[in-house]
Structure formats: C-alpha cells, structure tokens
C-alpha cells in the first residue's frame, strides 16, 4: 500500500514564520551567514520525513516582494546518506486566511546534489512552499513556510487587546447590573418593610 507521507510544518512554523534560529531541534528555521562567501544570509530548515533527511534553504533569508529568491533543497536517505535522485515539484499556496490560491513554481531535477527552484513574489504575505517527489514508489510531500516581506504583528496584539477589553467590559457590565439588581431589591425590601 502506498503511504502518502505528509509533513505540515506550516501550522506550527507559520506561527513562527518571521522567526527562529535553531540549533538543536529539527524543523525549526535557522538563519545563518557565511563569512567566506558573497552569498546573502540564508534561512534554513532541516527536517526528517520517512526515509529521508531534508534540508531546505532560502536565499535571501528575508525575501521581499519583487526580489528574486531561490530555494535549495537537499534530500538524503537517513540510512546511507545517498542523495535523492528524482524529480521534485515545487508549488506555492497563499497561507493567509480565506485564500486558497495555489500555483506551480516548477519541477526540478538534481544538480550537484541540490534541487534549485527560483521564485519571485509580487505581494508580501505568508506562503507555503510544497515540495513533492516520489521515492521507492512512495509519494512524499513536504510543506515549508515562506514569509515574503515583513509579517504583520498587529494580529497578536489586536487579539490580546481584544480579549482583555472583552473580559474587562464583560465583568464591568455584569457587576454593574448585579449592583443595580441589589439596589432595586433593597429598595423594594425597604418599601415593603
């Protein structure tokens, strides 16, 4: 039976999309700068899926709209470090709420142990890059987050302020009504007494 392996890092790492430097746990984006070459800082995610250890690098580390960028994908077998030799298809989809736009970026074959896929986005936002390949008859699908431009941090602040205001106003209204009820009851008691 063909088992479709799916790695959805986007949910967890999408939250951390404009983030993380990682050294000791797989699957976290890390940023690095090689002082010995002219390449710009890169963002790198290492992960494991099925029989393969996959490294995904994005140049530049913080891509901007209308700026060309590149994804380098390395996949090696966990048991013998043998590089994957298959066609890898890259697609992209908009990860923002209420959007299901999806587009194929291209299909790449191995070149010097690397699968290179270029990209250029016109709009800033949160995207999910999907790399798909088949190895030993099993389909593999790996999702990686990609932030183009700066993320909007207003969302978390807005949610936090909204939640606090909602609770404070709710408590205030409840307590006012309760006090009013108590006053009314006392008033009636006094009249009856």
């Amino acid at each position, binding site marked *: 039976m063909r088992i479709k392996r799916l790695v959805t890092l986007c949910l967890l790492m999408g939250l951390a999309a404009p983030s993380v430097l990682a050294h000791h746990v797989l699957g976290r984006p890390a940023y690095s700068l090689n*002082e010995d070459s002219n390449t710009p800082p890169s963002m790198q995610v290492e992960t494991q899926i099925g029989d393969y250890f996959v490294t995904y690098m994005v140049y530049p580390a913080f891509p901007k709209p209308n700026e060309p960028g590149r994804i380098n994908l390395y996949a090696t077998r966990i048991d013998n470090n043998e590089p994957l030799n298959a066609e890898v298809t890259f697609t992209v989809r908009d990860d923002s709420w209420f959007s299901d736009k999806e587009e194929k970026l291209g299909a790449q074959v191995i070149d010097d142990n690397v699968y290179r896929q270029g990209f250029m986005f016109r709009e800033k936002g949160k995207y999910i890059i999907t790399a798909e390949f088949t190895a030993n008859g099993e389909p593999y699908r790996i999702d990686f987050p990609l932030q183009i431009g700066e993320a909007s941090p207003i969302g978390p602040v807005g949610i936090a302020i909204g939640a606090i205001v909602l609770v*404070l106003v709710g408590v205030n209204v409840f307590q006012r009504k309760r006090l009013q009820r108590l006053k009314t009851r006392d008033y009636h008691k006094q009249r009856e007494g």
Partner: protein
Amino acid sequence: MADPLQQLVCKSPGIMAHPGLPTIWVEAVLLAMLLLAGWMLWRPQRAIVTSGGAQSLAGWPVIGPWMKQALTRPWTLVILRLITAAIFLLVIYAGLFGSPLAERNIATVLTWSLWWTGLIMSVYFVGSAWCAICPWDAIATWLVRRRLWGRGEETASLNLRVPRLIRNVWPAWWMFIGLTWLELGLGITTSPYMTAILALVILVLTTVSLAVFERKAFCRYFCSVGRTVGVYSELSPIALRPIDPDICARCKTLECYHGTETIEPCPTHLVMGRLKENTYCTSCGACTQSCPYQNIAWSARPTGEEAMHTARPHWDAAWFILGLVALTSFHGLSMLPGWEQWMRSLAHAIGDSGQLLWSFTIGMAGSLLVPAALFSLAVFVTWKLIGKALPYQRLFALLAIATLPLAFAYHLAHNINHMVREGKGASSVLLNPLGSGTLPMTEAEMHLRHLQPLVQQDILFALQAGLLVFGFWLAMRILRHRMVALMGTTVLNKTLLLPMLVFISSITLFNLWLLMQPMIMRM
C-alpha cells in the same frame, strides 16, 4: 592548558557546543559526594532545632531603616513595577516588530539568557521578591483594578472562588510542562516573535484570572514561574516574616489576611503569623503595609531551614517539586549533541516526520516518568522500612522536599552556563533592542563571543561543581532532618536513609554526567 579553540566543539556549520565539566572537577564532585554521604550517615544527629533562628533584617544597621521605609510605603514597589512593566512592553514590541534573529533581539536575549537565568539565581538571595515586581501581575492589576496601587473596587472583579478541582498547583504543574514543551520542543527560546506571543498570552491569562477569580488566583494556582520561584524560595535564606511572632500571635484583626480599606488583602490567602513555608508568598508587600504594628519585614535564616523543618508540602506541591527535578535535568538532556540523533532514530522507528514533535513529546514524557518512578520506588522502600508508620502519600510529600535542592542546584548550574556564555552579546542588544539592520551571527563571531565568556571558564566550572555539591549536601541534610522528625529519635537507623540516599545520589550523578557533556549553544 588546552587550546581554547579546541574547547569549543564545532559540530557542523551553525552548530556549536559549550565544553563540559573537565575531569578534575568531576573527580572533585565525586569525592565531595562520597565524604558528605559518609558524614551524613555516620555523624550523630543533634536534637532538632526548629526555625527560631530567623533574624529580622529590620534591626540591622543601614539596611534596617531603609528597608522599613521601603516596605511600609507603596512607592518603591510601584516604581519597580513601572520599570519592569516598561521593559516587558519593550520585549513584546521588540519581539513582534524587531529582527527575527534571536541573538540580535532583546526579546529573546533578555527573556531567556538574562531574565530566566537570573531569576532562578535571584531566588537564593531575595526569595520570591520577583513576584512582587512581576510585570504580568502589575499590568493585569492596573488594568483590572484601574489604579497604580492600593485596594481596587470590589466590583472590578467577579471575585469568584477558584473551582475546588484546580485549587492546587496542578494547573501550574501542567503549565510548567507546557512551557518546557514550547521552549525545547517548539523552540520559542530562539524566536523573538514566539517569545512575545507567549508573553502576551500569559498577560491575557493573568488579566482574565484577576477579573474573574478572587484575589490573585493566577499567582497562587496557575503561574508556573511564580510556583517555581515560590518552591525554590523555601531554600532561600531570605523571606518575609513577622519581626516579633508574639505580636502576630496576639493579633485578632489579621490585616495581613483581610487587608485594610486602602490596602489589598494577601493575594494568596496567607496569614503571616501562621506562615511556615514560602511557597505561596509573592512578597507583594501588602502585609508589610497593612500590618498596624509594622511587624512584617525581610528576615535572614539558615539556608534550607524551612525545607528542613517547617515546610509541609502537599501531594500537588510534591509533584511540582518532582517535576522541577525531572524537567531541569531534561533541559540539559535536550541540549546534548546526541539528543537530535536519538530523536531522529525514535522518529524513524515510529514514523514521525517534520519537527518530530511526537518524538520530542515521548522523550520528554520519559524524562518525567523515569525520575518519578525511581522516587516513588525509593519512597515505597522507605515506607516499608519504617513499618508504614504514616500514609504513603504523606511520606511521598514529606520526602519530595529533600529532592528540591537537586533541582535548584542543577537549574543554577545549567542556567549559569547559558548566562555566562550566551549573555555576552547583551550589551550590543541593549544598544539596539530591536536588532534593526543586523545580520545573523557568523561562525567566527560565535567563536569570538564564546571564547570570551562573562567570567573565566575555570570559574564557571568551579561554580557548577560547587553548586552540584551544594545541592547534594542540602538534600542530604533535609532528608536526615525529615527522617529524624518522622521517627522521633536522634539515633537514626541508617538503613532508613539508604533508599532516598540512592535516589539523591543517582540524580546528582546523572546531573553531573549532563554537565560533563558538551552542551549545544542556544543562541
């Protein structure tokens, strides 16, 4: 002496590890443990002296008058709270709007390399004082009570009682586990953005709790930071206590508990005259201001006095202590170079993919279960040896406190490494808190930074070794005092101590082994 460059283990590009404790220090710790164990077993136990030895600092020259002024007026605390709240808001702002590079952003550097590390150290010197200036509580209090200090209106909160089911430290225990999972599994310590989100989430929880429940339920039952500080502060030589216990004994009005018209009641339902353990004291200063006799002040006492004699942890608090023992060691374990390989092997075996969170969760659960099982076994054997003189749960809770110094000592020894080696770039981060326009650290920069720690490496090793010995010594002392009190005799059968001695030694040896290993740099 070894070449310092050789002492930094470079695993692969971008991954470096701090060197572990050298053999000479390991041997010194082992020798000290052997001598201390022998001394504890064969030294005659003197009659138990209860904690009458606490000495109020109010009577000390210079410190005393200043402290009285500071404790009885709200301004000192208000100013400190304003400062910590401002820093806290800066952390959130920098985390959300600043550079995503953890080592360049004040959100991560301040929170994880300086605050979280320094906080645990501060407990020894100032007890639970952090809770008094905690920005989460300060901001939540200002928002809900709508005033900077003093007693808020009763109508500002629903003042509901916390449901009985969660009127204990189990919520804090679960939150502590959750935070550890987020910290080490999801990696929020290396993400300014996630650090800011976590700070915001805790702020929302604190505010909601204050608006819904009576007094400060979040501080008492839910806050894992507060409970960690509270539990560790039982070992601290400093605590808020009555200056003259007789005044408290005669007091009928209990302003410390009820508050006054203008001053808040004790946020965690404590009566100072009956206070025997620091676990729930937040050092908020309400009692020092409300006491009509000005009878509450900071007191000095012997280290671990409270844990040895007066503390009576309940079942939930005992599990919190065990959680600390297990999770502090787990922090070290998850930063070993081999950890990732173990997780990868486990993931391959169970078919886990991606961030390997299932594998991590299993690893973390195992790290929690193994010490808990070993401790339960040690308590069970002791229980049999003492002829089941008291219920098993009671003995479990009584002996759990003897393991507290192990967690505290390793926590400090581990954190000090982070602070000394990773806090090096703090000054540049303070000058550019958002890390605007900065680039990731190059390997050369990492090497340079870590070759010049804040203190000399040999001093760091000595501190780590000393802390482990301190933890072992204090754990043994608490164990012996507890057993003497339990058996009601100073002539203690040494066999009764053996099961717990084996447990305490095992944890110390494991922590020593962890310190011997290279530790992967966090940032």
